């Protein structure tokens, strides 16, 4: 007997599954955050170049990764939702957007916090920081577009076009920003590289990344459930869901 996965493509069927998974992911995320912070703040040694300031990276790097990863996922889900007319997929894309924007903003903010002690300034216009800023703008555009459109299906599809155009542009934008940066290398800022990775540092980084990943899943699934309730009102399964 093979499981028919397509059952779960229906929002009504997926809702109970999602609802049940959320607490597991949330707890796992909380545990990993605690472990990761313990390893990163207590066990990992001082970096010989940057002193204690490098510890900001344990939140900065995972946040940056999540910001980029969630954007790509958002575009994929939106594309699938558009191509296959799959509502749930589009709802997933919309749910990913805000968390992704949050992580991108966090990566910019913590990046500044890392930059001030290491580079000496709060902000520097290098290729990565500028590209991350542009990524934030892309997120904001997506969220704004969807919130401006009342009809949910039009919002889904318009968002899909925007997300796909955005995701295709991201490499081009990154390349052009890098180009711009190398040409305009004015005052040489000593870009202090990430510290040479000692085992506890790497472990902490990975654990924090996993924690952020699980956190994202928990929050995005919760948003998805909200979206399902909002959009699938008036459908029979509601009453069953409420007895949970």
């Amino acid at each position, binding site marked *: 007997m093979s499981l028919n996965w397509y059952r779960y493509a229906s929002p009504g069927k997926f809702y109970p599954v999602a609802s049940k998974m959320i607490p597991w992911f949330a707890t796992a995320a909380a545990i990993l955050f605690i472990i990761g912070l313990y390893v990163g703040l207590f066990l990992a040694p001082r970096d010989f170049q940057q002193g204690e300031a490098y510890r900001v990276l344990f939140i900065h790097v995972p946040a940056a990764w999540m910001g980029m990863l969630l954007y790509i996922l958002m575009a994929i889900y939106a594309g699938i939702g558009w191509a296959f007319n799959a509502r749930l997929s589009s709802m997933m894309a919309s749910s990913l957007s805000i968390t992704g924007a949050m992580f991108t903003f966090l990566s910019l903010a913590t990046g500044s*916090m890392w930059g001030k002690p290491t580079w000496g300034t709060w902000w520097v216009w290098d290729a990565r920081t500028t590209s991350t800023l542009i990524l934030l703008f892309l997120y904001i555009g997506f969220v704004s577009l969807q919130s401006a459109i009342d009809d949910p299906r039009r919002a889904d599809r318009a968002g899909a076009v925007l997300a796909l155009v955005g995701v295709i542009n991201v490499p081009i934008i990154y390349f052009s920003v890098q180009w711009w940066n190398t040409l305009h290398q004015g005052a040489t800022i000593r870009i202090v590289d990430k510290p040479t990775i000692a085992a506890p540092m790497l472990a902490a980084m990975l654990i924090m990344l996993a924690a952020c990943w699980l956190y994202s899943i928990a929050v995005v699934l919760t948003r998805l459930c*909200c979206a399902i309730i909002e959009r699938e009102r008036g459908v029979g399964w509601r009453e069953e869901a409420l007895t949970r």
Partner: protein
Amino acid sequence: MNWSKFFSMDGYGFYVWGSYVLALVAMCGEVLQVVRRKKTLKRQLQNFSK
């Protein structure tokens, strides 16, 4: 374990702890917002179906 040294982080305390506080605020804020939304929606559904 030298606690004062831990908190000051060699003078970088503001940056290190500031970043983690910022992250905590952002993530907790998001969780609160989303949990509250879900509660509100479920409540609306219940009221509606009564």
